[in-house]
Protein backbone atom coordinates (compact mmCIF):
# COMPACT_ATOMS: atom_id res chain seq x y z
CA UNK A 1 0.00 0.00 0.00
CA UNK A 2 2.69 2.44 1.00
CA UNK A 3 4.68 1.55 -2.10
CA UNK A 4 1.67 2.28 -4.30
CA UNK A 5 1.32 5.67 -2.61
CA UNK A 6 4.83 6.59 -3.79
CA UNK A 7 3.99 5.38 -7.31
CA UNK A 8 0.74 7.34 -7.50
CA UNK A 9 2.30 10.50 -6.07
CA UNK A 10 5.01 10.23 -8.73
CA UNK A 11 2.16 10.24 -11.26
CA UNK A 12 0.75 13.45 -9.79
CA UNK A 13 -2.05 12.04 -7.62
CA UNK A 14 -2.44 12.93 -3.93
CA UNK A 15 -2.59 9.86 -1.70
CA UNK A 16 -3.60 8.92 1.82
CA UNK A 17 -2.58 5.57 3.33
CA UNK A 18 -4.64 3.96 6.06
CA UNK A 19 -1.87 1.90 7.63
CA UNK A 20 -2.62 -1.20 9.68
CA UNK A 21 1.07 -1.82 10.33
CA UNK A 22 2.55 1.47 11.50
CA UNK A 23 6.15 0.18 11.61
CA UNK A 24 6.05 -0.89 7.97
CA UNK A 25 4.45 2.37 6.85
CA UNK A 26 7.15 4.33 8.69
CA UNK A 27 9.88 2.42 6.87
CA UNK A 28 8.37 2.84 3.41
CA UNK A 29 7.51 6.46 4.13
CA UNK A 30 4.60 7.51 1.90
CA UNK A 31 3.62 11.17 2.23
CA UNK A 32 0.34 10.90 4.16
CA UNK A 33 -0.30 8.11 6.63
CA UNK A 34 -3.06 7.57 9.13
CA UNK A 35 -1.91 4.64 11.26
CA UNK A 36 -4.87 2.77 12.69
CA UNK A 37 -4.49 0.14 15.37
CA UNK A 38 -7.47 -1.93 14.31
CA UNK A 39 -7.82 -5.67 13.80
CA UNK A 40 -5.96 -6.79 10.68
CA UNK A 41 -8.45 -7.19 7.86
CA UNK A 42 -10.63 -4.34 9.13
CA UNK A 43 -8.83 -1.15 8.03
CA UNK A 44 -11.87 1.02 8.76
CA UNK A 45 -12.11 -0.50 12.22
CA UNK A 46 -15.69 -1.56 12.73
CA UNK A 47 -17.99 -3.35 10.26
CA UNK A 48 -21.52 -2.03 10.27
CA UNK A 49 -20.56 1.18 12.10
CA UNK A 50 -20.84 3.97 9.52
CA UNK A 51 -20.28 6.71 12.12
CA UNK A 52 -16.99 5.19 13.23
CA UNK A 53 -15.88 4.66 9.63
CA UNK A 54 -16.64 8.34 8.93
CA UNK A 55 -14.48 9.39 11.89
CA UNK A 56 -11.56 7.49 10.37
CA UNK A 57 -12.16 8.97 6.93
CA UNK A 58 -12.50 12.50 8.29
CA UNK A 59 -9.12 12.35 10.00
CA UNK A 60 -7.64 10.73 6.88
CA UNK A 61 -8.92 13.45 4.54
CA UNK A 62 -7.77 16.15 6.96
CA UNK A 63 -4.19 15.03 6.22
CA UNK A 64 -4.60 16.63 2.79
CA UNK A 65 -4.37 20.05 4.44
CA UNK A 66 -0.75 19.50 5.51
CA UNK A 67 1.95 21.28 3.50
CA UNK A 68 4.47 18.48 3.91
CA UNK A 69 4.53 14.72 4.54
CA UNK A 70 2.57 13.80 7.62
CA UNK A 71 2.15 10.70 9.78
CA UNK A 72 -0.65 10.57 12.33
CA UNK A 73 -2.15 7.93 14.58
CA UNK A 74 -5.89 7.46 14.85
CA UNK A 75 -6.58 7.95 18.56
CA UNK A 76 -8.99 5.05 19.06
CA UNK A 77 -7.65 1.49 19.28
CA UNK A 78 -9.95 -1.38 18.33
CA UNK A 79 -8.88 -4.64 19.93
CA UNK A 80 -9.33 -8.06 18.38
CA UNK A 81 -11.92 -10.29 19.99
CA UNK A 82 -10.27 -13.67 20.08
CA UNK A 83 -12.90 -15.64 21.96
CA UNK A 84 -14.61 -18.24 19.79
CA UNK A 85 -17.87 -16.98 18.34
CA UNK A 86 -21.03 -18.63 19.59
CA UNK A 87 -22.37 -20.71 16.73
CA UNK A 88 -23.99 -24.09 17.14
CA UNK A 89 -22.94 -26.88 14.82
CA UNK A 90 -25.14 -29.57 13.30
CA UNK A 91 -25.43 -32.79 15.33
CA UNK A 92 -23.72 -35.95 14.17
CA UNK A 93 -25.70 -37.54 11.37
CA UNK A 94 -23.57 -40.26 9.81
CA UNK A 95 -21.54 -41.99 12.54
CA UNK A 96 -19.46 -43.76 9.92
CA UNK A 97 -18.16 -40.55 8.35
CA UNK A 98 -15.17 -38.70 9.80
CA UNK A 99 -16.51 -35.97 12.15
CA UNK A 100 -15.33 -33.11 9.89
CA UNK A 101 -16.96 -34.66 6.82
CA UNK A 102 -20.25 -35.16 8.65
CA UNK A 103 -20.11 -31.62 10.03
CA UNK A 104 -19.44 -30.03 6.64
CA UNK A 105 -22.33 -31.92 5.04
CA UNK A 106 -24.58 -30.59 7.79
CA UNK A 107 -23.69 -26.98 6.99
CA UNK A 108 -24.60 -27.05 3.31
CA UNK A 109 -28.11 -25.64 3.81
CA UNK A 110 -26.85 -22.67 5.82
CA UNK A 111 -24.13 -22.10 3.25
CA UNK A 112 -26.63 -22.12 0.38
CA UNK A 113 -28.90 -19.67 2.20
CA UNK A 114 -25.91 -17.37 2.68
CA UNK A 115 -25.06 -17.45 -1.03
CA UNK A 116 -28.70 -16.89 -1.92
CA UNK A 117 -28.84 -13.86 0.34
CA UNK A 118 -25.51 -12.29 -0.62
CA UNK A 119 -25.42 -13.34 -4.26
CA UNK A 120 -21.70 -14.02 -4.07
CA UNK A 121 -19.35 -16.54 -2.45
CA UNK A 122 -15.63 -16.72 -1.79
CA UNK A 123 -15.67 -20.51 -2.17
CA UNK A 124 -14.32 -21.73 -5.49
CA UNK A 125 -10.59 -21.03 -5.59
CA UNK A 126 -9.83 -24.73 -5.99
CA UNK A 127 -13.02 -26.65 -5.25
CA UNK A 128 -16.77 -26.20 -5.41
CA UNK A 129 -18.91 -26.22 -2.25
CA UNK A 130 -20.09 -29.77 -2.93
CA UNK A 131 -16.45 -30.95 -2.79
CA UNK A 132 -15.81 -29.60 0.71
CA UNK A 133 -16.68 -32.90 2.47
CA UNK A 134 -14.45 -34.88 0.09
CA UNK A 135 -11.57 -32.48 0.69
CA UNK A 136 -12.04 -32.83 4.44
CA UNK A 137 -12.04 -36.60 4.03
CA UNK A 138 -8.56 -36.43 2.48
CA UNK A 139 -7.36 -34.02 5.16
CA UNK A 140 -8.74 -36.42 7.78
CA UNK A 141 -6.76 -39.25 6.25
CA UNK A 142 -3.60 -37.15 6.19
CA UNK A 143 -4.25 -36.22 9.80
CA UNK A 144 -4.47 -39.91 10.62
CA UNK A 145 -1.05 -40.44 9.10
CA UNK A 146 -1.83 -41.36 5.48
CA UNK A 147 0.97 -40.37 3.12
CA UNK A 148 0.05 -37.18 1.28
CA UNK A 149 1.45 -38.55 -1.97
CA UNK A 150 -0.88 -41.55 -1.76
CA UNK A 151 -4.18 -39.83 -1.01
CA UNK A 152 -5.09 -37.11 -3.47
CA UNK A 153 -6.70 -33.87 -2.33
CA UNK A 154 -9.60 -32.62 -4.50
CA UNK A 155 -8.46 -29.29 -5.88
CA UNK A 156 -4.81 -30.27 -5.21
CA UNK A 157 -3.62 -26.87 -3.93
CA UNK A 158 -3.64 -27.26 -0.14
CA UNK A 159 -3.63 -23.53 0.56
CA UNK A 160 -6.49 -22.81 -1.85
CA UNK A 161 -8.52 -25.75 -0.59
CA UNK A 162 -8.11 -24.60 3.02
CA UNK A 163 -9.24 -21.11 1.99
CA UNK A 164 -12.31 -22.67 0.39
CA UNK A 165 -13.13 -24.72 3.48
CA UNK A 166 -12.68 -21.72 5.75
CA UNK A 167 -14.81 -19.52 3.47
CA UNK A 168 -17.53 -22.20 3.37
CA UNK A 169 -17.61 -22.31 7.17
CA UNK A 170 -17.48 -18.52 7.48
CA UNK A 171 -20.38 -17.94 5.14
CA UNK A 172 -22.46 -20.71 6.74
CA UNK A 173 -21.65 -19.57 10.27
CA UNK A 174 -22.52 -15.92 9.63
CA UNK A 175 -25.84 -17.12 8.26
CA UNK A 176 -26.45 -19.18 11.40
CA UNK A 177 -25.59 -16.46 13.92
CA UNK A 178 -27.61 -13.76 12.16
CA UNK A 179 -27.09 -10.37 13.75
CA UNK A 180 -24.65 -11.66 16.37
CA UNK A 181 -21.71 -10.51 14.29
CA UNK A 182 -18.38 -11.90 15.46
CA UNK A 183 -15.48 -9.72 16.50
CA UNK A 184 -12.25 -9.94 14.56
CA UNK A 185 -10.57 -13.33 15.00
CA UNK A 186 -13.53 -14.81 16.85
CA UNK A 187 -14.49 -16.66 13.69
CA UNK A 188 -10.94 -18.00 13.41
CA UNK A 189 -10.94 -18.97 17.10
CA UNK A 190 -14.23 -20.81 16.61
CA UNK A 191 -13.07 -22.45 13.40
CA UNK A 192 -9.78 -23.80 14.73
CA UNK A 193 -10.82 -24.54 18.30
CA UNK A 194 -14.43 -25.67 17.99
CA UNK A 195 -15.15 -27.06 14.53
CA UNK A 196 -14.03 -30.50 13.45
CA UNK A 197 -12.98 -29.04 10.10
CA UNK A 198 -10.59 -26.54 11.68
CA UNK A 199 -9.14 -29.13 14.02
CA UNK A 200 -8.72 -31.55 11.12
CA UNK A 201 -6.87 -28.94 9.04
CA UNK A 202 -4.49 -28.22 11.92
CA UNK A 203 -3.88 -31.93 12.46
CA UNK A 204 -3.35 -32.55 8.74
CA UNK A 205 -0.88 -29.68 8.63
CA UNK A 206 1.11 -31.14 11.52
CA UNK A 207 1.12 -34.49 9.71
CA UNK A 208 2.39 -32.93 6.46
CA UNK A 209 5.15 -31.22 8.39
CA UNK A 210 6.13 -34.52 9.99
CA UNK A 211 6.06 -36.18 6.58
CA UNK A 212 8.45 -33.46 5.38
CA UNK A 213 6.09 -32.27 2.64
CA UNK A 214 7.36 -29.10 0.92
CA UNK A 215 7.13 -26.07 3.26
CA UNK A 216 4.74 -23.93 1.15
CA UNK A 217 2.53 -26.98 0.74
CA UNK A 218 1.58 -27.05 4.43
CA UNK A 219 2.73 -23.85 6.13
CA UNK A 220 0.23 -21.47 4.53
CA UNK A 221 -2.75 -23.75 5.11
CA UNK A 222 -3.51 -21.73 8.25
CA UNK A 223 -2.32 -18.51 9.90
CA UNK A 224 1.43 -18.57 10.49
CA UNK A 225 1.22 -18.29 14.28
CA UNK A 226 -0.87 -21.44 14.62
CA UNK A 227 0.81 -24.75 15.46
Amino acid sequence: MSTLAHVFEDAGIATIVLASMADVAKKVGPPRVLACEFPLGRPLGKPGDAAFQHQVLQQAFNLLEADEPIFEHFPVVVESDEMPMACSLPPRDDPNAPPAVDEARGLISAYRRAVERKGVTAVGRAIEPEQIPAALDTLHQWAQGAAWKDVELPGKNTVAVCHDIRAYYLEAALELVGDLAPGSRSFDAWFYEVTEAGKTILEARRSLKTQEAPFPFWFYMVAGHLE
Partner: protein
Amino acid sequence: MTEDRAATRGDDAMRALASTMDAPEFTSTSFNKLGKPLSECRVAIVTSASLHRPDQDRFVQGDTGFRAFGRNDRNLIMGHWSPNFDHSGFHLDLNVVYPIDRLEELAADGVIGEVAPRHFAFAGNQPDTVSEIRLDTGPQCAVQLNADAVDVVLLTPV
Protein backbone atom coordinates in the same frame (compact mmCIF):
# COMPACT_ATOMS: atom_id res chain seq x y z
CA MET B 1 -5.95 -18.71 30.18
CA THR B 2 -5.81 -17.24 26.69
CA GLU B 3 -2.13 -18.19 26.40
CA ASP B 4 -3.18 -21.83 26.25
CA ARG B 5 -5.47 -21.36 23.26
CA ALA B 6 -4.32 -21.90 19.72
CA ALA B 7 -5.80 -18.93 17.90
CA THR B 8 -4.91 -16.02 20.17
CA ARG B 9 -2.86 -12.93 19.45
CA GLY B 10 -2.74 -13.44 15.71
CA ASP B 11 -2.61 -9.71 14.99
CA ASP B 12 0.24 -9.19 17.47
CA ALA B 13 2.18 -12.03 15.87
CA MET B 14 1.65 -10.63 12.38
CA ARG B 15 2.60 -7.07 13.36
CA ALA B 16 5.74 -8.32 15.11
CA LEU B 17 6.70 -10.39 12.08
CA ALA B 18 6.03 -7.59 9.61
CA SER B 19 8.16 -5.12 11.56
CA THR B 20 11.19 -7.40 11.12
CA MET B 21 10.72 -7.89 7.36
CA ASP B 22 12.59 -5.96 4.71
CA ALA B 23 10.64 -3.05 3.30
CA PRO B 24 11.25 -1.24 0.02
CA GLU B 25 13.21 1.98 0.39
CA PHE B 26 12.51 5.21 -1.41
CA THR B 27 15.19 7.86 -1.57
CA SER B 28 12.68 10.63 -2.12
CA THR B 29 9.03 11.21 -1.31
CA SER B 30 6.82 12.76 -3.94
CA PHE B 31 4.18 14.97 -2.42
CA ASN B 32 1.29 16.50 -4.31
CA LYS B 33 -0.46 19.32 -2.56
CA LEU B 34 -4.05 19.62 -3.72
CA GLY B 35 -4.56 22.60 -6.00
CA LYS B 36 -8.25 22.83 -5.14
CA PRO B 37 -10.55 22.15 -2.21
CA LEU B 38 -11.42 18.54 -1.33
CA SER B 39 -15.04 19.43 -2.08
CA GLU B 40 -14.04 19.72 -5.73
CA CYS B 41 -11.87 16.59 -5.85
CA ARG B 42 -12.58 13.22 -7.40
CA VAL B 43 -11.66 10.40 -5.00
CA ALA B 44 -10.82 6.74 -5.73
CA ILE B 45 -10.09 3.81 -3.44
CA VAL B 46 -7.20 1.45 -4.08
CA THR B 47 -7.05 -1.53 -1.77
CA SER B 48 -4.62 -4.39 -1.27
CA ALA B 49 -7.43 -6.76 -0.29
CA SER B 50 -7.42 -8.64 -3.62
CA LEU B 51 -11.04 -7.70 -4.29
CA HIS B 52 -12.60 -8.79 -7.55
CA ARG B 53 -15.99 -9.32 -9.10
CA PRO B 54 -17.14 -12.92 -9.60
CA ASP B 55 -16.78 -12.52 -13.39
CA GLN B 56 -13.17 -11.33 -13.16
CA ASP B 57 -10.06 -13.50 -12.99
CA ARG B 58 -9.26 -14.54 -9.46
CA PHE B 59 -6.00 -13.41 -7.95
CA VAL B 60 -3.45 -16.21 -8.20
CA GLN B 61 -0.67 -16.76 -5.68
CA GLY B 62 2.02 -14.15 -6.29
CA ASP B 63 -0.31 -12.06 -8.48
CA THR B 64 1.27 -8.66 -9.10
CA GLY B 65 -1.62 -7.35 -11.19
CA PHE B 66 -4.73 -5.41 -10.26
CA ARG B 67 -8.47 -5.54 -10.92
CA ALA B 68 -10.70 -2.54 -11.63
CA PHE B 69 -14.37 -2.37 -10.70
CA GLY B 70 -17.09 0.22 -10.98
CA ARG B 71 -18.37 2.52 -8.24
CA ASN B 72 -21.68 0.62 -8.23
CA ASP B 73 -20.19 -2.86 -7.84
CA ARG B 74 -20.93 -4.38 -4.45
CA ASN B 75 -20.79 -8.10 -5.26
CA LEU B 76 -17.08 -8.28 -4.59
CA ILE B 77 -15.02 -11.24 -3.38
CA MET B 78 -11.95 -10.90 -1.18
CA GLY B 79 -9.52 -13.20 -2.94
CA HIS B 80 -6.50 -12.51 -0.74
CA TRP B 81 -4.18 -15.49 -0.26
CA SER B 82 -3.06 -14.74 3.28
CA PRO B 83 -4.75 -16.70 6.06
CA ASN B 84 -3.24 -14.29 8.56
CA PHE B 85 -6.01 -11.75 8.97
CA ASP B 86 -9.71 -11.59 9.63
CA HIS B 87 -12.00 -12.18 6.66
CA SER B 88 -15.28 -12.01 8.59
CA GLY B 89 -15.41 -8.21 8.80
CA PHE B 90 -15.49 -7.91 5.02
CA HIS B 91 -18.29 -10.48 4.80
CA LEU B 92 -20.30 -8.48 7.31
CA ASP B 93 -19.73 -5.08 5.71
CA LEU B 94 -17.49 -4.50 2.71
CA ASN B 95 -17.04 -0.87 3.80
CA VAL B 96 -14.73 -1.98 6.59
CA VAL B 97 -12.21 -2.77 3.84
CA TYR B 98 -13.55 -0.83 0.88
CA PRO B 99 -15.47 2.22 2.17
CA ILE B 100 -17.33 2.91 -1.05
CA ASP B 101 -20.70 3.66 0.58
CA ARG B 102 -18.98 6.10 2.94
CA LEU B 103 -17.43 7.89 -0.07
CA GLU B 104 -20.84 8.14 -1.71
CA GLU B 105 -22.20 9.70 1.51
CA LEU B 106 -19.30 12.17 1.65
CA ALA B 107 -19.97 13.13 -1.97
CA ALA B 108 -23.69 13.56 -1.28
CA ASP B 109 -22.80 15.80 1.67
CA GLY B 110 -20.39 17.85 -0.44
CA VAL B 111 -17.32 16.93 1.65
CA ILE B 112 -15.62 15.42 -1.39
CA GLY B 113 -16.38 16.49 -4.92
CA GLU B 114 -17.10 13.19 -6.56
CA VAL B 115 -16.66 9.43 -6.27
CA ALA B 116 -14.42 8.14 -9.06
CA PRO B 117 -16.07 5.90 -11.67
CA ARG B 118 -13.58 3.07 -11.06
CA HIS B 119 -11.70 1.69 -8.08
CA PHE B 120 -8.83 -0.79 -7.93
CA ALA B 121 -7.52 -3.76 -5.99
CA PHE B 122 -4.09 -5.30 -5.75
CA ALA B 123 -2.94 -8.31 -3.75
CA GLY B 124 -1.32 -7.31 -0.49
CA ASN B 125 1.02 -10.27 -0.17
CA GLN B 126 3.83 -9.35 -2.53
CA PRO B 127 7.49 -10.32 -2.82
CA ASP B 128 9.63 -8.19 -0.50
CA THR B 129 11.06 -6.10 -3.30
CA VAL B 130 7.59 -5.24 -4.70
CA SER B 131 9.46 -4.34 -7.90
CA GLU B 132 6.65 -5.45 -10.24
CA ILE B 133 4.16 -3.16 -8.53
CA ARG B 134 6.67 -0.37 -8.25
CA LEU B 135 7.87 -0.44 -11.83
CA ASP B 136 5.07 -2.00 -13.83
CA THR B 137 1.57 -2.60 -12.53
CA GLY B 138 1.52 0.33 -10.10
CA PRO B 139 2.35 2.84 -12.85
CA GLN B 140 -0.22 1.11 -15.11
CA CYS B 141 -2.85 1.65 -12.45
CA ALA B 142 -1.76 5.29 -12.07
CA VAL B 143 -2.34 5.79 -15.80
CA GLN B 144 -5.90 4.54 -15.38
CA LEU B 145 -6.48 6.73 -12.32
CA ASN B 146 -5.26 9.73 -14.27
CA ALA B 147 -7.45 8.74 -17.22
CA ASP B 148 -10.39 8.93 -14.79
CA ALA B 149 -9.15 12.38 -13.63
CA VAL B 150 -8.73 11.17 -10.04
CA ASP B 151 -7.34 13.81 -7.66
CA VAL B 152 -7.07 11.80 -4.44
CA VAL B 153 -6.49 8.09 -3.80
CA LEU B 154 -7.37 6.52 -0.47
CA LEU B 155 -5.30 3.37 0.05
CA THR B 156 -6.73 0.69 2.30
CA PRO B 157 -4.76 -2.38 3.39
CA VAL B 158 -5.81 -5.65 4.91
